[in-house]
């Protein structure tokens, strides 16, 4: 067990170095000269240009430049954003809770909706419910999430008036609760501010549904397949023949075994969501890492674009590590070779 975890840790460390190699290459691919970019194309005297180049290490050979870059990345230094004038890492850290809160809300919603539907589909295999769910899943997998967001804004926001306008994490005029976790829903409750809590929840509804939509189909498919596999096994027949009710066999035994791979897949999806939600945040003006990234793209703030890419990739790697280790703990059948 311990050697397995150590080996995975080393593998992730190597991967992070690899990720930094890719992002360094991306930084080098950025069109135009960095000094000219820094001064917005205005003419710069040769002296200033020389000293900037020396200061940024651009006069060094490439391997040295990379090692400097890697050293900076490992210390959490991603450079300064041209658009905000602040260190990119600070910007990202400040915005990270918004992204995590939205992602977790979406995942939670997907599980609450998807798990019962997955069981239902398995128990009524090839029945009308199963077919309907299959069609719904199929269509939802073909849906661009940014488009679904716009449709929700139109139908439930503009037309029915159920959702507030998409203007971020809180309605205009509501003060931000004191920061404890960075999750507005939790912080507002801790501060005892029910008005802010309601607003935070209302603002999160539509984007969370958008995030959940793509995931629900995955949950239903995985759990349905897992349940069907478990229901065909000997222990289910044994349970039924010794007189256990179907309910006990399905929910106490089969579901417990079937749910493990579903949870694993959903956990890995969280990493992908951190990337995919970039577009959802853009549609709903949700001020997380994704919106920061999109704004950086529009401002041609390449360091910020690449910095956000690196951070999300590293978090993605850590999530996968966490899922692997957790699975090894939960399921003793996983061998650590």
């Amino acid at each position: 067990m311990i050697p397995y975890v150590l080996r995975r840790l080393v593998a992730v460390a190597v991967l992070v170095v690899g990720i930094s190699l890719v992002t360094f290459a991306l930084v080098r691919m950025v069109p135009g000269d960095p000094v000219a970019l820094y001064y917005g194309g205005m003419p710069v005297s040769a002296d200033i240009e020389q000293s900037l180049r020396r200061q940024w290490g651009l006069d060094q050979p490439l391997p040295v430049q990379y090692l400097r870059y890697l050293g900076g990345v490992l210390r959490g230094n991603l450079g300064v954003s041209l658009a905000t004038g602040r260190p990119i890492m600070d910007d990202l850290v400040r915005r990270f809770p918004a992204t995590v809160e939205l992602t977790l809300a979406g995942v939670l919603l997907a599980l609450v909706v998807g798990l019962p539907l997955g069981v239902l589909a398995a128990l009524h295999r090839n029945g009308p419910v199963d077919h309907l769910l299959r069609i719904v899943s199929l269509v939802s997998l073909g849906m661009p999430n940014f488009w679904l967001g716009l449709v929700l804004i139109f139908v439930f926001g503009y037309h029915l008036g159920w959702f507030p306008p998409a203007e971020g994490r809180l309605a205009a005029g509501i003060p931000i609760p004191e920061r404890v976790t960075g999750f507005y829903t939790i912080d507002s409750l801790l501060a005892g501010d029910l008005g802010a809590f309601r607003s935070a929840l209302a603002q999160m509804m539509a984007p969370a549904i958008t995030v959940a939509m793509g995931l629900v189909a995955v949950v239903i498919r995985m759990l349905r397949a897992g349940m069907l596999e478990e229901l065909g096994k000997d222990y289910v027949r044994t349970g039924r023949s010794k007189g256990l009710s179907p309910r006990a066999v399905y929910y106490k035994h089969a579901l417990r075994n079937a749910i493990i791979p579903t949870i694993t897949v959903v956990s890995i999806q969280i990493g992908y969501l951190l990337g995919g939600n970039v577009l959802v945040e853009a549609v709903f003006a949700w001020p997380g890492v994704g919106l920061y990234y999109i704004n950086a793209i529009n401002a041609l703030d390449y360091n910020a674009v690449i910095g956000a890419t690196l951070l999300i990739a590293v978090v993605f790697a850590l999530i996968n590590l966490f899922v692997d280790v957790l699975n090894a703990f939960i399921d003793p059948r996983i061998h650590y070779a």
Partner: protein
Amino acid sequence: MRSEVATVPVPLAARRRFKWNSSLVIGGSIVLLMVFAAVFAPLLTPYDPIKLDIRGRFQAPSTTHWFGTDQYGRDVFTRVLYGARYDLLIAVLAVAFAAGVGTPLGMLAGYFRGWTDVVIMRVMDLLLAFPNILLAMTLAAVLGPSLNNAILAVAIVGIAGYARIAYSATMAASTEVYVEAARALGAPHHRLLLNAILPAILAPIVIRGTLGMGFTILLAAGLGFIGLGAQPPTPEWGAMINEGRNQVILGRWWTSVFPGLAIVLLVTGFNLLGDGLRDALDPRTR
């Protein structure tokens, strides 16, 4: 003689195993319909996809403009039809590029093993270390916003998937008796790879490519939506959704909703076709 040993049984076996199914038929029909719309767009509509008509802007869907008109008075139905050209072209080019680069890389790694394997597959792992859409957007941003760069970005992101499939399929095929036999008869590496192994691993690559088409369309539309793909006035679906975005909150839903529906239809078509092909070509994975 050697190549006959290697290739003849495979197409025969494939023909025997191929079973039609409803996913295949429905998905195939949807895709064919879209190809038809793309090819015959000028015959299917009297309007121009680019020409402005400021007086006729913001018309709701009607019998003259089935999908309404956008903020420049252009017929949305016409633009959706012409858009099929761009989104299909992006998907075909990007998938062909990704499969064309990824498959040989995976085959080389799986065939030669050793250092070739380590170097190629670790690079592929690096590509997979980034969430797809994020890597595609960052690449497109760094390369500069244009249709060609978007295709290139989406293609690069896709390479690793094909390499992985080709890699494991090649390793499995290398131990087959007919490959051993060809090797024993002294067939050179390139002949083993092209005549013996490639036909055996083609089915999973084709299935992946079909499913990859839908995925690629979603990625490319996402790039178009944030302005990194096709540029206005190109009637690419993602870019159209973006152009209509500010109209949606004003109640003019049609400019963004119809191109989105076209995406859903085409992606679903490719997904069905891919699932159907998998069932038809390889009953073991049912």
